[in-house]
């Protein structure tokens, strides 16, 4: 068995007419990772995923899966399965037939197909729905059928295109944990595309932030959040106050790293301002504070006591303070 990275991408490029969707991307993904491609619409993340699946042919560059060159291999000969954003369940087949479809294509014998389908349906808690048609299932159940169908062949790589986008908020949160559990339990490598930074942060072992067809930064969620490499990344992941530094360059300062108080705090960096906007979110409050030195800054407070949400009001003069290590210096 090959011990190198499960995915190796070298200079991968894909153009659509004059638009360069993916621009000379280099990337390595290790075995057992839950890797997220994160970015806004049109950043090239979906095109990159579709090249991994084989639905798009790169114009330049090579793509290796488990050490084998897969650049020109059609999708039906790749050891890769994909879960589609729309789930793409076959409407004329029941759940068991949907899940067993890939095994049937491989010529697996009927009794074995039945056993493996039953096993995987149990894993996603759908063992009682095998005879239902997709139209008879709820959104969450369809999502799990799609996941089971993509998992049943035990692919070397599972690709997920916005796996949670079609679910409502409550279900999305529980499904996140469920998918991470499955990924760890099966020991597979997941590559997930998402535009939702919260989703990427909470699920991924590593993530790549993409912008205009290129990878802006790769790292663990912690690295990318606390040590953004550029203004783009700092701004895309979470909220960041970008402060221009004397002598060039910028600093990204997260709202929760700033102390908000009525009196001048005893911190190395302080600035006076006035609250122009308050957003009360229950667990925390966000304040927009107008400062002379850095313009409008965003500050958050955690509402650890029930009175905390009322502590500051609009138009109130306040002080902001932070320590020297609170911000990340940015070069670009």
């Amino acid at each position, binding site marked *: 068995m090959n011990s190198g990275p499960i995915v190796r991408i070298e200079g991968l490029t894909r153009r659509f007419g004059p638009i360069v969707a993916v621009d000379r991307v280099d990337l390595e993904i290790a075995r057992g990772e839950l890797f997220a491609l994160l970015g806004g619409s049109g950043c090239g993340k979906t095109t990159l995923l579709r090249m991994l*699946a*084989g*639905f798009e042919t790169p114009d330049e560059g090579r793509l290796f899966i488990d050490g084998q060159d897969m650049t020109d291999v*059609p*999708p*039906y*000969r790749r050891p*890769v*399965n*994909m879960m*589609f*954003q*729309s789930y*793409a*369940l*076959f*409407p*004329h087949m029941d759940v068991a037939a949907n899940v067993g*479809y*890939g095994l049937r*294509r*491989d010529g697996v014998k009927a009794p074995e197909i039945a056993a493996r389908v039953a096993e995987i349906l149990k894993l996603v808690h759908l063992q009682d729905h095998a005879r239902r048609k997709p139209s008879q299932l709820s959104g969450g159940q369809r999502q799990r059928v799609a996941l089971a*169908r*993509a998992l049943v*062949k035990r692919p070397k790589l599972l690709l997920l295109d916005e796996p949670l986008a079609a679910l409502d908020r409550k279900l999305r949160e529980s499904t996140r944990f469920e998918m991470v559990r499955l990924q760890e339990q099966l020991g597979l490598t997941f590559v997930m595309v998402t535009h939702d930074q919260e989703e990427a942060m909470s699920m991924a072992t590593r993530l790549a932030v993409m912008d205009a067809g290129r990878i802006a930064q790769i790292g663990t969620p912690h690295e990318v959040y606390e040590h953004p490499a550029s203004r783009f990344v700092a701004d895309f992941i979470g909220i960041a106050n970008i402060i221009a530094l004397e002598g060039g360059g910028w600093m990204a300062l997260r709202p929760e790293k700033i102390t908000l108080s009525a009196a001048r705090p005893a911190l190395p960096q302080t600035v006076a301002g006035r609250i122009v906007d308050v957003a009360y979110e229950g667990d925390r409050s966000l304040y927009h504070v107008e400062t002379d030195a850095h313009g409008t800054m965003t500050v958050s407070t955690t509402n650890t006591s029930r009175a905390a949400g009322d502590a500051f009001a609009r138009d109130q003069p306040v002080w902001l303070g932070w320590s020297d290590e609170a911000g990340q210096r940015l070069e670009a």
Partner: protein
Amino acid sequence: MRGRARFAFGMLAFGYAFLYLPIALVIVYSFNESRLVTVWSGFSLKWWHALFANEAMLEAAWLSLRIALVSATGAALLGLAAGYALVRAPRFPGRTLFGSLVVAPMVMPEVVMGISMLLLFVGSERLFGGPDRGFLTIAIAHTTFSIAFVAIVVQSRLADFDRALEEAAMDLGATPWVTFRTITLPLIAPAVGSGWLLAFTLSLDDLILTQFVAGAQSQTLPMRVYSSVRLGVDPQINVLATIVVTIAACALILSGWLTRRKA
């Protein structure tokens, strides 16, 4: 609310009456006793007996039925291919032209098609010594002008077909042909089926084109009816119309049932 509902039902009844009263009359009059097509003189099955004893009429009906089956099947296969190509083939030079050419027979005067078909068959007879004008030439001509109808139905069904379904199949290991067989075809089968039924109906009652390409020996049902009408109609025509309407209605119900079952 009441008044509006009554008005809506009234409009509906009027619409249906406009569409189906003539057909209902034909059916009623097929059980007429009178010799005259339009005068009711009592219930009788005698014209039904007469029609089923009318060898020439039955022979024409059998020929029409065989032609309709063959040409509808041919048109369904070729129309499926054309509709699929129009939607799925990557952009190729002349695609718009090809698209218009496929549907051209729908708007081309039948007389023009009839002449061109006749010229083709005469020419091929001279060059290759065949085919003899009759069953085969009529079936070919009907196939040609029915392809457009199937192609359009298939094309519109495929246009809103979720491509991700085919990609999912390929992702799971299905080759393009297997994907077509197991995913695409079952899902567009109702469209192909209704295209087939359309082609079948068009073939069954075509008169103009058929007259150009039919030889001296073959007479289809519409040709037979047309010539007998010129000699003066008798109520056998009503019986015939009743039978044709029944077949068409069954076909429609079948296609509706098929569509609903697949969806």
